[in-house]
Every structure is written in C-alpha cells, then in structure tokens.
C-alpha cells in the first residue's frame, strides 16, 4: 500500500527504483526522490520492476514528473513495466514521451546515446 523510491546513480543517468504502489498518495516519496537527483543528470530511469499497483492518480503523477523533467532538460525512461501497464501507458500516450525499455541495460544504453 505504500511507496518507497530508491535513488540509484548510474553514470550520467539516475535510476529511481519504485517499490509498492504509484497512486495519488505517492506524490511525496516520488517527488522527494526526484528532487534528490543532481541537476547535471541528463536521464532519469523509472524502474517499475517492483510495482504492485498503479492507478489513474499515479498516471497523473507521472505526467507531473514528466513536466518537471522536461523543464529541467532531462529525459524520462521506464523499465520493468508489465504488459498491462505498458498498455495503459500506450493508451494514455505517455509511451510517446517516456522511453520504455525492456531492461536496465537497454535503458542506460539509450540514455547515453
């Protein structure tokens, strides 16, 4: 029911590892984690491998995060999404703005390209 987000630096990118839920109630942990990322980081990878549940409130939060990242000139990428949440990101067309990759290696390769 709760959200924890671990910040893991990975060269010019930073990985945010999400555990638990992403809902409207996840704003503080997600935004706090994002705020901890140095401005020099060019790409932020969201790792949904340990995601239990995401709802429309969570989608709204991703949009907010996307707005902030775009203002900061940072790219947003995602890994570890299940088929279902990939479908939802496609329906909401968030997949056009967030680069979705199969695994960390692919995401980091895309981030450094």
């Amino acid at each position: 029911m709760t959200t924890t987000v671990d910040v893991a630096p990975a060269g010019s990118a930073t990985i945010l590892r999400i555990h638990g839920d992403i809902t409207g109630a996840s704003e503080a942990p997600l935004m706090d984690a994002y705020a901890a990322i140095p401005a020099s980081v060019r790409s932020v990878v969201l790792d949904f491998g340990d995601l239990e549940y995401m709802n429309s409130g969570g989608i709204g939060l991703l949009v907010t995060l996307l707005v902030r990242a775009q203002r900061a000139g940072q790219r947003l990428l995602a890994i570890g999404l299940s088929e279902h949440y990939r479908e939802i990101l496609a329906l909401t067309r968030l997949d056009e703005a967030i680069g979705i990759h199969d695994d960390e290696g692919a995401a980091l390769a895309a981030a450094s390209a």
Partner: protein
Amino acid sequence: MTALTRPVRRLFGRAAAAPAGLDDATAAAPSVAIEQPGIAVEIPESDPLFAYLQAAPGPVDVTRLELASAALQQLRDAGVALVVPLVTQGELIGTLNLGPRLSEQEYSTDDRRLLATLAAQAAPAIRVAQLVREQAAEAAERERYEQELKVAQLIQQQFLPRELPKLAEWQVAAYYGPARVVGGDFYDFIDLGDGRIGVVVGDVTDKGVPAALVMARTHSILRAEAPRLVEPGKVLARANELLVPEMPARMFVTCLYGVLEPASGRFVFANAGHNLPYLRTDHGVRELRATGLPLGLLPDVTYEETEGEVGHGDAMLLYSDGLVEAHDPQREMYGFPRLREAMAADDADSDLLDRLLDGLHAFTGGGWEQEDDITLVSLRRAAGVAVAGWTGDRPEVALTHDATPATAGEPLLVFSIEGAIGNEREAMTRVAAAVAPLGLEGPRLERLKTAVAETVMNAIEYGSQGRADVPVDVRVDADDQAIRVQVTDRALSGPVPDAEAPDLAAKLDGRQKPRGWGLFLIRHMVDAMDVSTADGLQTVTLTLARDGR
C-alpha cells in the same frame, strides 16, 4: 396599463426601455412631456442607481443627483430630467422617465407629489399585470410542449406497421407501449418478396419531434434498402452511411435487423447497438450475439452477421430498453435476469407478450408511470418433429447451446466498503478473487482489475466524498457470456460529469490538469461502461465479455 408592463419590466430584465410608459405618464400628468416617444435606458441591479431608486421616497431629479452611475449618465444623455421609481413591496419594478417640463420651469412640489401618488398606485397594479403575463407565458410554453409531444407521437405511430405478417407455423406478436414523453422506439416487418421477412426493432436516443423525424427517416431507409440488399450486415451499413451525415448532434439510433426464413426457421441478423435477442429452446434461454455501433455515430462501420435457426417449439424475443429499464416503486430495475426468467417460463399455451407484460405490471405495481417506450416483438414457431438447434457462426454461441444456462439473478459477490480513499484496492482484490474461477485470461483480468479500482476510486472520491461513513456497494454478476461489476455510490457530489478527454500534450503544457485519466481508462479497459442514477444513488456498470479481444 398592459402596454406599460412589458417595457417597464424589461428595464431590469435585459436591454430596457419605457417608451409606452412615457406616453402613459404624459397622459396622467399633462404638465410633463418629452420630445422623443421613448427612452431606452437599462438600469442593471448592480448599478448604484438601482439601489438608490429602490430606496428613494419619491421622484428623483437626475440632473442634480450625484452618483457614480453609468445608468444615470445614460438617462441624462437621453434628456431625462425626473425619474419616478415604481416600487411595490420594496421591489423596484420599473421607472417613469420624464423629460424637462415643456414650460421650461422646474417640476414643482405639487408635480412631484402628484407623480409620487401616481407611482404608488400604479406600481402594484403593474406588478400584478406582470405576474399575469408571466403566468400566461408559462402556460403557453407548457401547451406548446404538450403539443410537440402529440406531434411526435403522431409521427412515430404513423410508421408502426398496421398489421403483422401471417406465416404458416409461426405466431408473430408485437407490442408497442408509448411512454407519455415519447422515447423513439420503432419496429417493422418488411416483406422481402421471396417468402422471407425482414424484422426490425430500434430505438432513437432523445425524445420529441427531432427524434420522431429521425425514426421516420430510419424507417424509410430500411424499407427502401432491405429488399434490395437483403443481407442484414449490408442493410445496416447502408443505413448508417445514409444517416451519419444527417444525424442531429447527440442523437443516434440503435437497431437490430434480421431476416427470417419462415420455412426453415433460419434467422440471420446484424445489430447496431441494440439489445440482443433472446432465444428460448428446450435447453433454456440464451442471448444471441452480434455487435456493432449504433447507426448515425460514425461513418464506415461494418456489422457482423450472426446466423441461426429457430427450431420448432422455440421462441425468439426482440425488445427495447423500456422493459428492462422499468423500475418498481423501490427504484429497483426490472433488468435482464427477470426478462430471462419470464422467457424461460414461456410455453405454447400462453401468449409470451401477455405473460411478459403481466409480469412487468406485477413488478412495477399500480400507479406506475411508464418511463420509456416499450417495444416487444416475439416470433414463436409451432412445435413439430424437427430437432431444434442453434448453429451460430460464432463457435462460443454453439458451445453454450448445451451448457446449463447460467442461474440468472444470483450474484457472484456482493459487498460494501467504507468510502475512504485507498479502499479501492481492497475492492479490486475481492472482485479479482470472485471472478478467478471463471478463468478470465491474464491480460483481461488485469483490465477488469484496473477498471474496478478506478470506478471504486471515483465512487469514493465523488460519491462518498472520501467519508468512511458513506459506503460504496459492489456487486459482481456473471453469466456464460459476460462479467458485470456494479459499483453503487451515494452521489454526494451529484452525478459525475463526463471528464474531458485527456490530452497528454495539453497536460504537459499545463492546459489540462495532470489528473483526470480515470474515466478514460475505465472506458478502454472494459467492453461497456454504463452509468445510471436513481434516488440519490449512482451506479456504474462495467461489462466485460468472457471471450474476445
């Protein structure tokens, strides 16, 4: 006096004038006159002059009045010297606007006293006249509305068939019961000339004359195209093509069209968003499935055809919403399960439609005002030696043929949760557990879970306003074709309006708030989402077909 009332009333209604008033005032007070026949000055309630005049003890000399008022300036510009407020029961209902005296002297104390007396006597009389006029206008409006209903009814009934087809071995029956406010139902039988019969049942959304005209147009199109094209899918596609460009906004037509071959019992049909027909055989009652969009919504729509056979002793029922959506005094809906049960009890010795209507009236009780048109068409084939069988081209239809019909009306799961934010997860988990034995495919189960969670979340946020003491009810039903989840809330925030379509670009540049994906997601997760409200409750019904996609 009547001539005075309209312009004076309008003074505060919208753009205003008192032209007739001035004439009357001139007649009543010969010492005053004005050169123009009328002066149109609006005094809005927000203008300080309004409050000033409402409180003024008598005529007001506008040439000397000091007030920051746009209306005052307009009055002066129009040459008004004296304004006599017409006040009754503390309400300013108009003014008499007078120009300078013809003698070029100032208005005397006597003049003013006379005008004040006149105003005090005239104001209540004018108010009464205003009220009479308003009531007459309301009565005329009511009459116009009733008249429109009558016209709509006449148009609609004009196009219902005068007689039923007489077919050897078949008992064909139809019932059309109009609601007081016409709902736009229609049905028809079309002789295709080769022994086959086209059968139509439809419903135009919306009411009144426009809906009746759309119904008439649909009727004519089907009559013209059915004998030519014959194949139901093509007939509906053609009707859609013709209706799309001429359909009024927010209106569409649901319609089922089928071709019956009486000699063999073969029935081929296509469906534009209408209720699915029920077929009663020795094996129970079954819905025959064919899906397609309602007519008039979108161009280039294709309609799938389903083909089958009504065997000897079988009966088929086509029907409109009015029956299943009828409510009893406790606001419970008649619903599909009851219809299905009534169909199951059908036998050759009684009239199916009589039985259905008796059952409906027993359900609704006396004093029921019919909410929507009710249309029923039944096709019953006499019992014979042939073996009845339904051979749909969709395998799942054939498969369900021998299956035990689902027990109608017994839910898989019913529960309530507290309307506290976060409880949608528990609801989602419980629904998922309840439908687990049905073996829904993984991705479809995930979609159902998301739809349930989003719907319950909306119910909690809006219906319960996040209050734990305001519950949300969840009910899960399933039959052999679909899973239905009903989420009922207490509608504390009123009906939830349809959210604007989420637009990611607009959200990213801040023109839309980041949230607001809920309804969008729900609609994409399930096959149908319906919202109904009754007696302070709002129910969202999610339907997911057990096969498909």
